[in-house]
């Protein structure tokens, strides 16, 4: 049988120590699940460099969409733990991308079930000024922050750090 298994980690619990329930719970708490990230970025130099660097530093898988429509196709097939969104994209800006994606998600009959349970955190990644990038509120997306592009790679990765390590789940009904 060739089951498609993703993101499996074997947690070492010694049989000689007869682990109790608390030991097992601790082991699971320290386990950080691999994040599934969608990067919506039309600059191939930036998308390949940033995704490569994030994968080296954090446990994650990253899909790269070069335009809003490719991003929408990804979203109808998979749920993501984090979206990194370039603000200036071909055809639509970041705000319009999220609005159109929202419309697409509402119409799609066979969405992954997580889309019905929680909102996806979105980090805007742009060389525009932060106050020029104001996303509209949508049902499925939760704007959580802004990372400036015009800085050294190390600073960019540091800026992404808190978003990569955040385990918050944005259930519907939360701010």
């Amino acid at each position: 049988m060739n089951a498609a298994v993703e993101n499996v980690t074997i947690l070492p619990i010694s049989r000689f120590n007869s682990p109790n329930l608390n030991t097992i719970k601790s082991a699971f708490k320290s386990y950080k699940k691999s994040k599934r990230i969608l990067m919506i970025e039309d600059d191939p130099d930036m998308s390949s460099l940033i995704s490569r660097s994030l994968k080296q530093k954090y446990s994650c898988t990253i899909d790269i969409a070069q335009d809003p429509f490719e991003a929408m196709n990804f979203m109808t097939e998979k749920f993501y733990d984090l979206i990194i969104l370039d603000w200036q994209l071909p055809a639509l800006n970041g705000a319009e991308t999220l609005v159109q994606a929202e419309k697409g998600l509402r119409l799609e009959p066979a969405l992954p079930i997580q889309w019905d349970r929680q909102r996806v955190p979105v980090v805007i990644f742009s060389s525009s000024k932060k106050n020029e990038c104001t996303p509209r509120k949508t049902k499925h997306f939760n704007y959580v922050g802004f990372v400036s592009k015009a800085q050294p790679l190390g600073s960019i990765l540091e800026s992404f750090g808190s978003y990569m390590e955040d385990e918050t789940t944005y259930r519907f009904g939360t701010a």
Partner: protein
Amino acid sequence: MADKIDIPEEAIIKYVERRKQDLADCRAAISKLDFKVLERVGHQIKGNASTFGFDELSKIAIEMENQALKKDVEKLKTALSRFESYLKKM
């Protein structure tokens, strides 16, 4: 202070090749007075040049974007000359 991270040589080679194409696109755009192309290229390079360690190129790109928004042809030509000179040094 954030760690300095080395960028793979092949990424830098690809980056430089794309900038050469950008320069060619910008030269064609200025002859057609297509300021949108110049603005887009300037904006993109403004964002990525610092990440790749080319701070001077980022400054040139900011000038390109600003002059494209103002539709100032002469200053754009100056910026493109600086862009070309910088690429030769890269």
